[in-house]
């Protein structure tokens, strides 16, 4: 402590100069070259980047074709063919929906995404705002997609596809799956042995099998379960299958939150004379859901990504539509570019959701004062 900054004024000595005066060099020293080992790591990273980046840039930017209406232009170039997206983006995004009616889907998607964004902003977290907003969204998007009124020709749901179908599957999974998840989680925590056993067997057996097999059941086996003459729409069956799968995972996350609630909360609720459902909906679940929020959002993101599994059973979501449209022999060799574009769309949705969940966690953390 003798020659540290504490004594600089009394002795009149100047403080020691900073290790590096030029900010850039100082930053490099503090972040890239603290120790000899770190210098080596930096060097290895630079060598890898030096070999990888130029060839990527060459393929993706320098030699790439960005605009072309003819596939022969792309064939002559050695780089990527981003023109394929300009050429095929309509069927990629909207599937086999009639071409002239695509504006309806675009409007529906915009309305839906606006409603989602509104729901994410705390300013609008009031029943009298969100309930009308979602009723309007549901009514307008479904009207736009079905048509049959206001001079719009009717489009059967077997022709729905692309991004709107992905969003429908996602919303359906959440709307059906979330209440089921809460029921399953409460069932697993129940004191009634039969209820608990049923929930445990249901959750664990479905968590142990791949989503594909559940979709196979929804498509191939479920029709056999119904009495003759009764039929359910394939889209609905698949949606219910995905919702059940989602619910089993979500139930485990919610159960974690339920376990973290102390006994005192239950006892206090009982002392107030609240019944089981009142205790759960007003005291326990609000706290449990808040505790398990990070896990809940993770599984919501997973549900969004899982919509792509319908590729296997031939529902025309965004990925299936892209795969189908890229069978076109003229553009076929540029499938990679189309997949990268679809991947980017998925990335945007999932990345935005995960960043948003981090934001919400921070808000909830601020509000948590005991």
């Amino acid at each position: 402590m003798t020659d540290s900054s504490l004594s600089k004024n009394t002795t009149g000595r100047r403080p020691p100069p900073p290790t590096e005066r030029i900010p850039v060099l100082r930053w490099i020293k503090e972040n890239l070259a603290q120790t000899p080992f770190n210098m080596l790591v930096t060097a290895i990273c630079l060598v890898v980047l030096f070999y990888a980046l130029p060839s990527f840039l060459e393929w993706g930017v320098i030699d790439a074709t960005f605009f072309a209406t003819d596939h022969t232009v792309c064939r002559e170039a050695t780089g990527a063919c981003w023109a394929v997206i300009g050429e095929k983006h309509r069927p990629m995004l909207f599937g086999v929906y009639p071409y002239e009616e695509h504006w309806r889907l675009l409007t529906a998607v915009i309305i839906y995404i606006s409603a989602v964004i509104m729901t994410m902003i705390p300013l609008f977290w009031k029943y009298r705002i969100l309930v009308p907003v979602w009723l309007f969204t549901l009514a307008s998007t479904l009207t736009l997609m079905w048509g049959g009124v206001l001079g719009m020709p009717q489009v059967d749901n077997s022709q729905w596809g692309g991004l709107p179908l992905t969003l429908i599957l996602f919303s359906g999974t959440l709307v059906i799956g979330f209440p089921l998840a809460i029921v399953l989680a409460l069932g697993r925590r129940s004191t009634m042995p039969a209820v608990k056993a049923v929930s445990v067997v249901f959750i664990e057996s479905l968590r142990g099998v791949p989503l594909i097999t559940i979709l196979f059941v929804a498509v191939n086996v479920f029709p056999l379960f119904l009495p003759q003459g009764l039929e359910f729409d394939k889209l609905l069956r698949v949606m219910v299958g995905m919702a059940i799968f989602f619910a089993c995972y979500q139930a485990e996350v919610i159960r974690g939150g339920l376990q973290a609630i102390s006994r005192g909360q239950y006892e206090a609720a009982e002392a107030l004379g609240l019944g089981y459902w009142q205790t759960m909906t007003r005291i326990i679940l609000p706290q449990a859901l808040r505790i398990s929020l990070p896990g809940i959002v993770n599984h919501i993101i997973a549900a969004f990504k899982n919509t792509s599994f319908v590729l296997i059973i031939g529902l025309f979501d965004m990925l299936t539509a892209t795969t189908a449209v890229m069978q076109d022999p003229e553009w076929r060799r540029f499938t990679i570019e189309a997949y990268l574009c679809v991947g980017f769309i998925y990335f945007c949705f999932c990345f935005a959701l995960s960043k948003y969940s981090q934001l919400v966690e921070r808000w909830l953390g601020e509000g948590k004062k005991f």
Partner: protein
Amino acid sequence: MKVATTMAPRKTDESIFYSKAFRALAYQAALCAGLAFLAWSLYANVNENLARQGIATGWGFLTTSSGFDIGEALIEYSAADTYGRALVVGILNTLQVAFFGIIFATILGVFMGVARVSRNWLLSTIASWYVEICRNVPVVLHVIFWGTVIHLLPKPRQALIPFDGAYIMNRGVVLPVPEADPAHPWIGAAFVAGILGVFYLRKWAQRRRELTGQYIPVLWPGLALIFAPPVAVWLAFGAPLVWDVPVLRGFNFRGGMELSPEFIALLVGITAYTGAFIAEIVRAGIQSVPAGQIEAARAIGLRQSFIMRYVTMPQALRVIVPPTTSQYLSLTKNSSLGVLIGYPDLVNIGNTTLNQTGQAVEAIAVMMIVYLSISVSISICMNIYNRVVAIKER
């Protein structure tokens, strides 16, 4: 309710319908009855529907000839073999890709997780780009993306050569392997014996340390114990080393070890996807160890490598192991995406069986039961491991 005090207790309060125990019993009875009715009606409907469509039921199809070929099989198989054998081929293929997927995803995930908490800005940035990109894209897209990429690779004649004797092309990857030799089983046995030896060496060293306080290094002697015996056996057999190098004959390679494009694409896809999740788990595990623990370890004069081995890792592992288990399970289940790119895994072969025989219920039941058993066995193994690393209250 101000009159409540003057009112006599209502009759219904003593009624059995208001007793908690009776209600619980009644709810459960209703649930069981409802489920039993549902099961019975589903069973009846399935039977009736199958009879009407003229589809056979039962497990007889397992012993009839399948009539389809399978691209790659770990056991002898031909189209004349039974559906049962075809499904076993599928199960083995699933286990094969899941086994290698778990190994590679663990290596990739641990490396990227450690890289993310590195103080080196460049390394941690590269690692976080990898994590964010790979985990925010559906695994289905990962798999079909690599399935498409591998078919765009050059033909065998213009194959890429990463090192001498190995070729990467649109028909997969071929690698040179040592030719079979009588020494190989003995080398393997020596390797296993070495691992068992390390296990006992560690236990002995630990007991000795606890008794006497004397530190016995295990790491380097342990590594020597694992690798020295196989090398010694190899030398004792006269160091046999003949490489079976793949050679281009006509349009294809002969010899060496061949990995099909479907296998490679599936493996790369599920490894890249799961690796990103494991990286996040590892990062969270390392960051969960309180800084005070490491400072305390430094204060009592532990070496840097000891801090990692005796302070950081044991605590981080407790956070890392349980979620990693569920990642292993999800990787195994995601290996069913082989059906998308034509890898003959269980779901692919089960699906073919379903389409050929029409026996959807049985075919899907086989798939579900197999995956459930795999999941349960991985869970049990990892629970045992978890018990080993868990906090031991003494």
